[in-house]
């Protein structure tokens, strides 16, 4: 086991990692920018080292500074957290070259999954479904018909040079294909001076379903079920829940087993998440995140397993020590990401916390590095708290979430708490009836 872990991150996730270490009897080193000298994880860590100025580039993204801090403090391992250096293959490699353990996957796996095209190709070969489409440009209508028959309708025709919706057309049947194909090419030519188009199956209202995975260095891999992260705004997750209200038991087992098997085949070590789009009973791989996710918490709530502890354990070389059958699921969990931002305009709202009171009681977990009087710095991500609620049923969980949101007090800055209170009162949310576009549509309707 490690004696000392350096936490190369900040905010609530640094605190989360500190807690896991502390509970494992591992000493912690907090590295921080000048802007984070008063941060809670800095105060709680066994040692703290200031590694640079407020700018993330010169502190949390500063590889030499992080490695030097690990050297002077005598750390055994470095936990990269989420964001910052967590999916930087070069960093992972340098960490290991300098004789520290990188708490995460191999640089090779980070590299493979970091490139979308390579990632899709890799998992496709291992049997994971991806959104079907043309393998290259579709230059004739005849070719388009062929592709559409292979992928199935509806199909999306999109400009190779495209972006912003220009040169994108959907055909719901063979009847519509000719017109859509020609319109797309025409628009592409007009917009980009290039009428080359690609095609793929069109998903009109997919859900974002992801599988939490864990592999060890001995070829074992398990999954911890799925999370439904479809409540998004501008591709940012806002609320996540586990299990997904959209999956039935057979779908759940199918995708979980498939993802775990693929993980084992990859020889992947550490925690990771495979993200899928899900529509009409079908899953399509989007990407794999080779790190901890913000929303790992809800998986912890329904499995009682500390994923950061498991992540650290497998990084020491320990085998999983349990198999898929040993992982039991109980109840339902929902996470609300609380940001320091205006709940309607989404303007960031850094500043001094004036009054902080977290909700408590049965089934309520708060992961937050806030405290009364803390100053939320303007330099970083606006996530300031994760409210995570567990219940024996989805309904109990939602009722509990409602009362917890009522009790949560964060003064001094704008927060997204009012947005969360609003979302959970919506009939569609209550019924579990939403897709990745739902939140943005709901907000436009006001």
């Amino acid at each position, binding site marked *: 086991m490690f004696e000392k872990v350096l936490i190369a991150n900040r905010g609530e996730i640094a605190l989360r990692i500190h807690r896991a270490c502390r509970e494992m009897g591992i000493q912690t080193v907090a590295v921080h920018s000048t802007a984070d000298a008063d941060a809670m994880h800095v105060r709680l860590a066994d040692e*703290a*080292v*200031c590694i640079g100025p407020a700018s993330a580039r010169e502190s949390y993204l500063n590889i030499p*500074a992080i490695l*030097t801090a690990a050297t002077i403090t*005598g750390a055994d391992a470095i936990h990269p957290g989420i964001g910052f250096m967590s999916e930087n293959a070069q960093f992972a490699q340098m960490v290991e070259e300098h004789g520290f353990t990188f708490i995460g996957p191999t640089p090779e796996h980070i590299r493979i999954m970091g490139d979308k095209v390579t990632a899709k190709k890799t998992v496709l070969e291992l049997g994971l479904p991806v959104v079907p489409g043309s393998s290259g440009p579709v230059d004739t209508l005849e070719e388009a018909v062929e592709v559409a028959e292979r992928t199935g309708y509806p199909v999306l025709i999109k400009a190779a040079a495209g972006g912003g919706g220009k040169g994108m057309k959907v055909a719901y049947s063979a009847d519509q294909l000719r017109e859509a194909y020609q319109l797309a090419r025409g628009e592409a030519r007009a917009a980009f001076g290039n009428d080359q188009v690609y095609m793929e199956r069109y998903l009109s209202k997919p859900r974002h379903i992801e599988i939490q995975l864990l592999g060890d260095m001995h070829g074992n891999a398990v999954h911890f079920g799925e999370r439904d992260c479809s409540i998004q705004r501008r591709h940012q997750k806002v609320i996540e829940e586990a299990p997904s209200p959209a999956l039935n038991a057979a779908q759940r087992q199918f995708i979980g087993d498939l993802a775990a098997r693929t993980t084992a085949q990859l020889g992947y070590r550490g925690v990771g998440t495979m993200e899928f789009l899900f529509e009409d009973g079908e899953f399509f791989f989007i990407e794999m995140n080779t790190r901890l996710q913000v929303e790992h918490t809800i998986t912890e709530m329904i499995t009682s397993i500390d994923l950061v502890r498991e992540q650290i354990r497998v990084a020491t070389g320990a085998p999983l020590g349990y198999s898929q059958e040993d992982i039991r699921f109980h109840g339902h969990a929902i996470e609300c990401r609380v940001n320091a931002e205006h709940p309607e305009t989404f303007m960031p709202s850094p500043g001094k916390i004036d009054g902080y009171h977290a909700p408590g009681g049965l089934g309520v977990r708060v992961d937050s590095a806030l405290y009364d009087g803390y100053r939320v710095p303007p330099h970083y991500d606006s996530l300031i708290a994760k409210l995570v609620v567990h219940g024996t049923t989805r309904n109990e969980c939602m009722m509990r979430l409602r009362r917890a949101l009522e009790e949560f007090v964060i003064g001094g800055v704008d927060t997204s708490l009012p947005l969360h209170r609003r979302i959970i009162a919506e009939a569609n949310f209550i019924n579990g009836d939403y897709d990745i576009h739902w939140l943005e549509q709901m907000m436009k309707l006001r």
Partner: protein
Amino acid sequence: MATFDIDGDLVRKLAGLLDETGLTEIEFAEGEKSIRVTKGGVAPAFHMTGGFAPGGAPATGSDQTSPPAALGVSSHPGALTSPMVGTAYTSPEPGAAPFVRVGDVVKAGQTVLIIEAMKVMNPIKAPKAGTIAHVFVSDAQPVEFGEVLLTIE
């Protein structure tokens, strides 16, 4: 007029009255003169200062360094702060004479310390000419970003 006469007895009398009456402020003006005395005033709110009791984290884990002292001088106009995290060396090689000693006169640009980071030795140069007033680091001591290394006066 020219002088500003403070009547100590008057202040003492008013202080006594504050105590006696339990008041927190007395202001009194007559003609051109006025006096105001207050007591107690705003108690600072708690704000967790010093909270999170056990395992509290001092800097760098080094016993040699003295961050509280150094911290106080970080606003000193002649303070030279570390531009990086690393290990400070006060002399070019083990056993050699130090780059500078307290009392030495240095020129701007003169190397006063070395900081090692990532096996690279980074010379730290005096930002201005002057006399070394204080050296806060000892040889082979780990230093943080922004830590005061020495002062030049």
